[in-house]
């Protein structure tokens, strides 16, 4: 063995290590930049009024996005009503009943739906809901977010239901408990935390959607008193403020983005807490 050869190998090894390390750091750089920018640009507009007041008319400074915050939660509520039952029941079918050839097609369909651009969803719901109802509405906005949640929830529900050991199903059936009761009371109950986790992640995913809301929920500068009327949402408000020419609105857009990120982070943290509980339980 000649020494130079060894030297070259060592250098290659170190170079490889450094390259991968730099790339790994590059991965979290955008996150750090994002937080830094949102904080430095938005924190000045973040005050109590921001959470409790309606937007001020053009030209006046101050005001808040209270209607948009409430609007986002209303939209998520409608979305959950649409997405959770269909997604969970669909997942139950895939995990507990489905024939394998049909399951393959349904799973493939769900994966395709997951990849559909969100603006496409908006157009579809515009044609299906907004046009027949003759106007933008909270319903349309909630439905489009709900439809986007269905494939996400369905796939996670299927995964966690499959993780339930078969012994529990057999034990229940052997007690003379019917199949549907076994599924609802034994299998789903055992997998409940995983299903809730999937629902929360799907909510976090659609909470920041803007494009599909542009021509469904549309946005509203005032409180929404009727779900058949347009409703404000935080991402829409950010969009409207960001494309405006006013300095004060730009600051509010940053603040809105910061709040949205905090809401989504909060959902992700609660998911963490839920899953940690699940693991600690299974080790007993």
């Amino acid at each position: 063995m000649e020494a130079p050869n060894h030297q070259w190998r060592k250098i290659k090894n170190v170079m490889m290590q450094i390259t991968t390390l730099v790339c790994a750091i590059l991965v979290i750089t955008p996150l750090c930049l994002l937080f830094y920018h949102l904080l430095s640009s938005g924190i000045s507009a973040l005050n109590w009024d921001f959470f409790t007041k309606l937007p001020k008319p053009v030209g006046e400074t101050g005001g808040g996005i209270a209607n948009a915050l409430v609007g986002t939660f209303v939209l998520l509520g409608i979305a959950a009503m649409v997405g959770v039952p269909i997604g969970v029941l669909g997942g139950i079918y895939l995990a507990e009943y489905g024939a394998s050839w049909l399951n393959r097609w349904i799973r493939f369909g769900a994966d395709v739906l997951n990849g559909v651009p969100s603006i496409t969803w908006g157009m579809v719901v515009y044609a299906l809901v907004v046009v027949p109802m003759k106007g933008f509405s909270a319903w349309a906005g909630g439905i489009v977010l709900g439809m986007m949640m269905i494939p996400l929830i369905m796939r996670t529900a299927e995964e966690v239901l499959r993780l339930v050991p078969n012994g529990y199903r057999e034990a229940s059936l052997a007690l003379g408990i019917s199949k549907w009761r076994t599924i609802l009371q034994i299998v789903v109950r055992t997998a409940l935390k995983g299903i809730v986790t999937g629902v929360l992640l799907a909510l976090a995913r659609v909470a920041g959607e803007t494009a599909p809301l542009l021509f469904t929920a549309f946005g509203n500068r005032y409180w929404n008193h009727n779900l058949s009327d347009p409703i404000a949402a935080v991402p829409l408000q950010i969009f409207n403020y960001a494309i405006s020419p006013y300095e004060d609105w730009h600051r509010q857009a940053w603040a809105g983005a910061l709040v949205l990120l905090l809401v989504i982070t909060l959902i992700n943290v609660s998911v963490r807490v839920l899953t940690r509980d699940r693991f600690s339980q299974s080790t007993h």
Partner: protein
Amino acid sequence: MTSLPENNPAAATSPPRASTTPESAPSKPAANPTPGGTRAPAEIALTIRDLSIYFGTNKVLKEISLDIQSKAVTAIIGPSGCGKSTFLRSLNRMHELVPEARMEGQIRLFGHDIYSANVDPVVVRRRVGMVFQKSNPFPTMSIADNVTVGLRLNGIRDRGLLAERTEQTLRMAALWDEVKDRLRSPAISLSGGQQQRLCIARALAVQPELLLMDEPASALDPIATARVEELILELKKDYTIVIVTHNMQQATRISDHTAFFYLGELVEYDTTSKIFTNPTKRQTEDYVTGRFG
């Protein structure tokens, strides 16, 4: 082809659905029709005739015929893959969970054909309970809820009845004294042996007429195994038990009759003492003396 022990098949026409589960005081067999001494003709719980089971085109059980005596323990022995678990699961139609499973022949439980077209497998499983190799108490439920789950999910809401049945079956399973102060704790906080006795209590709570056990002690340590065996001998007073076991000593300790299965066929069926001391077939002798399997 098979020798039936002491019973004649005609005895199978005894009163159908004879109650094998006294409503109160399970440890006192006051209403027992066969008091010690005068031995009445043994009642037949299960009559199995020409039973064949297929999974797809694979014939895993071949024309099995035997009678299982009421209030006795019948052990099923044989090497792995001989079809003994499939046989056991066919007795409460659990083998039907395998999609391409198919059966031929007849199984009568106290005279009733459990495979006739108008019989719901769910109802069969209420009458024929089952305990599995791996203890499987429901992890989301407390000890008490595990015991009563079969009743609650079949619509029984009466709290008094549920509490009474909880104590009664936990006593039968010899678990009451160990858990009576923590009935609300999670079932998975129990030890492995306790969990298995809890599963036995859970199966008994729906008051089945027959109890199937699929190697119930094979995952337990020797002390827990001994407790489960004592329990089986105790339960024999009121229940008909069919048990699959890999452990020959266990079969000799707890069973009255033993069936030896090999390659999907019933090789020999007789009283346990005959099977283990003086078997008729060469294959049986080789297996029980440990020469193969």
